[in-house]
């Protein structure tokens, strides 16, 4: 029983980070109608930013959020403005080609980072890296708990922003009916740029929070893009609340799979759920939660 609870706790904490990854992806998906297949690679870049800040300047990973998030926001803005939006202008190019472009961007990011840092696994060790505390007989990793708290804080802030501000409402409006949003005076081109920046900043946050408890290497982008994709499909494309459910579900499933089936099955569990959801609950959790 304790083992089971322990696994649930670990999965749930991880799920908080996955939710953040998923919300970033789903925002971009909603507004632009495309899957961003560079999502995990952008997260990887953020992790290297944090790694560099820590190993060369001794900056605490949590503090480097203040650098990694704005930096990745800007990178996202540049990608959307100069690489993705020009593709919409050319009418002969199908919108699907934006997806191909994101694949290319992901590859370039991976190879650039590999060129600079080599393929080695790096890790960032802090005073709290292995630190744990106990509640009853369940142990909690400090780093994961803090990461979870920060992830929740950003998720809540994001919701507040989307629901309470004109800019947030304009993002949702653009996702729901682009032409109507234009009629209401929304500069939808600007919205796509801001949204890509925000989505990227959120995944940068998740990446930075993962640094103290995970490895940093150039090829981690691909698997995390796949996770982000699974989370958004689980949650229902474009649904922010769904992305939270999707993230937590994936976190729990991976934890359970890794324990009861073996570490090597961790990723297969996610993919299996993904296929099951597509088969039996197309539309994802959005079908159940309606938001």
């Amino acid at each position, binding site marked *: 029983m304790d083992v089971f609870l322990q696994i649930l706790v670990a999965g749930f904490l991880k799920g908080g980070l996955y939710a953040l990854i998923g919300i970033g992806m789903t925002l971009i998906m909603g507004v632009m109608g495309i899957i961003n297949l560079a999502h995990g690679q952008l997260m990887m870049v953020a992790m290297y930013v944090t790694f560099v800040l820590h190993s060369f300047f001794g900056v605490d990973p949590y503090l480097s959020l203040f650098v990694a998030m704005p930096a990745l926001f800007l990178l996202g803005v540049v990608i959307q403005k100069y690489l993705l939006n020009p593709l919409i202008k050319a009418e002969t190019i199908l919108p699907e080609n934006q997806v191909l472009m994101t694949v290319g961007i992901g590859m370039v990011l991976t190879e650039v980072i590999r060129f600079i840092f080599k393929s080695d696994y790096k890790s960032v060790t802090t005073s709290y890296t292995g630190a744990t505390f106990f509640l009853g007989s369940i142990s909690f990793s400090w780093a994961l708990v803090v990461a979870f708290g920060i992830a929740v804080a950003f998720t809540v802030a994001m919701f507040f922003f989307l629901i309470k501000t004109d800019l947030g409402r304009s993002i949702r*409006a653009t996702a*729901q*009916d682009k032409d*109507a*949003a*234009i*009629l*209401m*005076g929304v500069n939808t081109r600007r919205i796509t740029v801001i949204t890509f920046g925000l989505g990227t900043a959120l995944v940068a946050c998740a990446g930075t929070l993962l640094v103290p408890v995970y490895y940093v290497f150039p090829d981690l982008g691909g698997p995390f893009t796949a996770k982000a994709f699974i989370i958004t499909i689980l949650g229902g494309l474009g649904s922010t609340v769904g992305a939270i459910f999707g993230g937590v579900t994936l976190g729990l499933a991976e934890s359970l799979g890794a324990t009861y089936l073996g570490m090597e099955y961790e990723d297969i569990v996610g993919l299996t759920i993904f296929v099951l959801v597509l088969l039996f609950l197309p539309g994802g959790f959005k079908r159940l939660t309606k938001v």
Partner: protein
Amino acid sequence: MLSIENIDVRYGDLQVLWGVSFEVREREIVVLVGANGAGKSTTLKAISGILKPSSGSIRFDGIHLDQVPSDKVIGYGVVHVPEARRLFREMSVEENLIMGSLSRPAKAKRKETLEYVYGLFPRLRERRKQAAGTLSGGEQQMCAIGRGLMALPRVLMFDEPSLGLAPILVQEVFEIVKRIKEEGVTILLVEQNVRQTLALCDRAYVLENGRVVLHGTGSELMADGHVKEAYLGL
């Protein structure tokens, strides 16, 4: 106030409007009538900038609206209530209304205008928290009109506001249109309810196959042989 001069509009290679010209004067109700596919919605889209004319000009108080980016048009007080309402379906009624008031002057008066709109449509106040996509057809139309009013329009363009409504609601919508005009808003109305709109309007233009073929006051057109035959079924 609003003058459309000789515009050609096309969807890609397909030309839909051919040298369309007309004018809307301050505080008028002007109606565009025409059969399905005549180009009425296309005309409104050209004015609100969703489509740009390939030639000709659209001027509003001397400003070349055809050269203004589409998202800036509403800022000049030229507001388009589109065909089929086009509400933000997953947003609440109130959020939809708020989306109408993004421009700086409209935002400054958001609270007051919201009260005004709720006064005009008490039904919307009752449903303010409800998702717009779950409203009835009539309520959706009210919400779409309300959203347009939130922008503090000087010219309000309606594209078939009576579409799909029961006769009693159609009547109500036209009453609202008149009321809005009396508050000083100029109105450009696209309708297939020819008889009722000709009775209500100051002037009307008849559009056929993308060209203006007739224009005059409502009563002139009602007496016109061609209009009687083609649109009034007499």
